């Protein structure tokens, strides 16, 4: 059967590239599906097509991606770009859409390495053209060598916000201000993470250097800002915030938002993988064993989608999942799997040392946000925070009920943009923990596909019932 593989890897970021390469190098028949134009994932987007000047500009961290893509190209893994996976079944079946045609294929094992996303946090005016993710602009620089024109304000929290700020400043972009929601004085809770962080000082020094470089430019840099809002008529014109008792305001053509990175879990939720809430990082992640195996024997989760750890951690997680899959397929014996895994586990541990401190330092704290009643929460269906509060006050207690009544999370993005904060708001209103408020249910297709494309698919009796695919429209 030509459409059966030993393993299908979904995602060609650091995790997917490494997992695919390892398995294909062992002689297995591997298919790698990714919806982007080129391999590399978020961090290494477009790396093997980047111009020499762009490779230089984006720095050493970016160039590292070349090693991964070169290995991948040589490994023998079959690669399909522009392929959007819209269904995965626990038995090992995958449906994807490519160039307007949907295919259904099977594998003995599936490694899902679909990565993470920027945490969406609604602020007044965030739907205005000109308000974008900082990571989105970073991706545009890599993909198309586009740089913001005009006045730019960066706002939010996290190392990637500062990284993007320093990249823009280096390019001579007019950065009007950096507005950090991170408190001026970190909570004492972070002290417990300090000793471990000192074991991995490289990362910390890099951060400090970045902060010094930003300071030298003299760009206004505020911390502990509140009440951030984007104002404009048809496009963004002004960014306002409060810092202590001071009201600050900046003219801006672009506002780049970034509130950290969270796993993108739709694919796992669609599969009904067991999920767990991470109280400290305030995000959901799939439950896995140390190889990345989910509660399904054949389904592995790898990379940042299982918990945000950065590019190197994603790469190592990819190796570990691949080793276990190779072991299950009888390619390597247990002792070989374990001895190969040992050094990877050690690197993973070392890499993780500074993380808890950084994460605690920039931790997302919903209490720092007011989430005003008239702020649009669900961009697709135009549902406001007030709409949610109203129906909670009428006795609704669960996210999926909220969805059914208000249509929040029912548009084309399926709650990707509103879901995370919807959970926080509902929990806060109920005075409950986020898991008690529930998690939006996701049904296939994961991404919209035209009915005609579905109809043209070769669907056999034991497959997905096409009638099921549109269930999510009603709930």
């Amino acid at each position, binding site marked *: 059967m030509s459409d059966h593989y030993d393993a299908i890897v979904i995602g060609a970021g650091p995790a997917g590239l490494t997992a695919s390469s390892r398995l294909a190098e062992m002689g297995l028949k591997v298919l790698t599906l990714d*919806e*982007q*134009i080129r391999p590399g994932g*978020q961090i290494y987007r477009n790396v093997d*097509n980047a*111009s020499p*000047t*762009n490779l230089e500009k984006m720095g050493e961290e970016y160039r590292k991606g070349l090693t991964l893509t070169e290995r991948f190209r040589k490994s023998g893994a079959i690669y399909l770009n*522009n392929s*959007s996976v819209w269904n995965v079944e626990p038995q090992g079946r995958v449906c994807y859409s490519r160039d*307007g045609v949907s295919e259904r294929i099977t594998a003995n094992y599936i490694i899902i390495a679909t990565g993470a*996303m*920027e945490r*969406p946090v609604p602020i007044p005016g965030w*739907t205005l*053209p*000109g*308000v*974008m*993710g900082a*990571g*989105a*602009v970073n*991706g*545009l620089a890599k*993909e*198309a*060598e*586009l*740089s*913001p*024109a*005009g006045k730019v304000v960066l706002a939010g929290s996290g190392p990637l916000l500062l990284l993007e700020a320093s990249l823009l400043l280096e390019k001579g972009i007019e950065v009007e201000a950096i507005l950090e929601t991170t408190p001026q004085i970190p909570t004492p809770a972070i002290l417990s993470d300090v000793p471990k962080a000192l074991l991995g000082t490289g990362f910390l020094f890099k951060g400090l250097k970045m902060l010094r470089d930003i300071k030298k430019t003299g760009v206004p840099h505020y911390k502990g800002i509140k009440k951030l809002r984007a104002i404009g008529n*048809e*496009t963004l014109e002004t960014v306002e915030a409060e810092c202590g008792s001071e009201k600050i305001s900046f003219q801006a*053509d*672009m506002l780049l938002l970034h509130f950290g990175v969270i796993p*993108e879990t739709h694919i796992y939720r669609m599969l009904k993988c067991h999920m767990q809430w991470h109280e400290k990082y305030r995000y959901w992640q799939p439950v896995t064993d140390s190889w990345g195996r989910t509660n399904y024997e054949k389904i592995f989760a790898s990379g940042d989608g299982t918990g945000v750890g950065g590019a190197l951690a994603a790469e190592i997680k990819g190796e570990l999942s691949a080793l276990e899959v190779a072991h299950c397929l009888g390619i390597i014996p247990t002792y070989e799997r374990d001895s190969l895994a040992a050094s990877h586990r050690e690197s993973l541990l070392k890499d993780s040392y500074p993380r808890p401190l950084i994460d605690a330092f920039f931790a997302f704290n919903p209490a720092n946000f007011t989430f005003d009643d008239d702020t*649009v929460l669900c*961009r*697709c*269906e*135009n549902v406001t925070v007030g709409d949610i509060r109203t129906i909670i006050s009428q006795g609704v207690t669960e996210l999926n009920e909220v969805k059914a009544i208000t249509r929040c999370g029912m*548009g*084309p*993005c399926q709650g*990707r*943009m509103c879901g995370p904060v919807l959970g926080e708001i509902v929990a806060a209103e109920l005075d409950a923990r986020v898991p008690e408020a529930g998690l939006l249910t996701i049904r296939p297709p994961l*991404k*919209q596909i*035209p009915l005609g494309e579905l109809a043209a698919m070769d669907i056999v009796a034991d497959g997905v019932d096409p009638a099921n695919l549109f269930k999510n429209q009603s709930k």
Partner: protein
Amino acid sequence: MFNQESTVTAKFEIVLDGETIAVPGDMSVAAALLAIGKITTRTSPTAKEPRSPHCLMGICFECLMEIDGVQRQACMTEVHEGMVINRGIKEGEGGK
């Protein structure tokens, strides 16, 4: 909203809202339109307001537009010669 610093020379002619225009190639439709200053991707069907790409990684669906007859995410679709794109918006009516 953006400057293109690229040395990339690939140029395609596409039809955008009925008008033939040249865009840079070797990138997504969303990037190519942003590169020539077309920042509005669609009018939100519910809010009736202009929207532009927000995430550029396939998450927000703000870049949905009719591309070669099908509603697709412009940030996940590679631009090509002769592509026909309809955003369903007009210049001066919130469209840029």
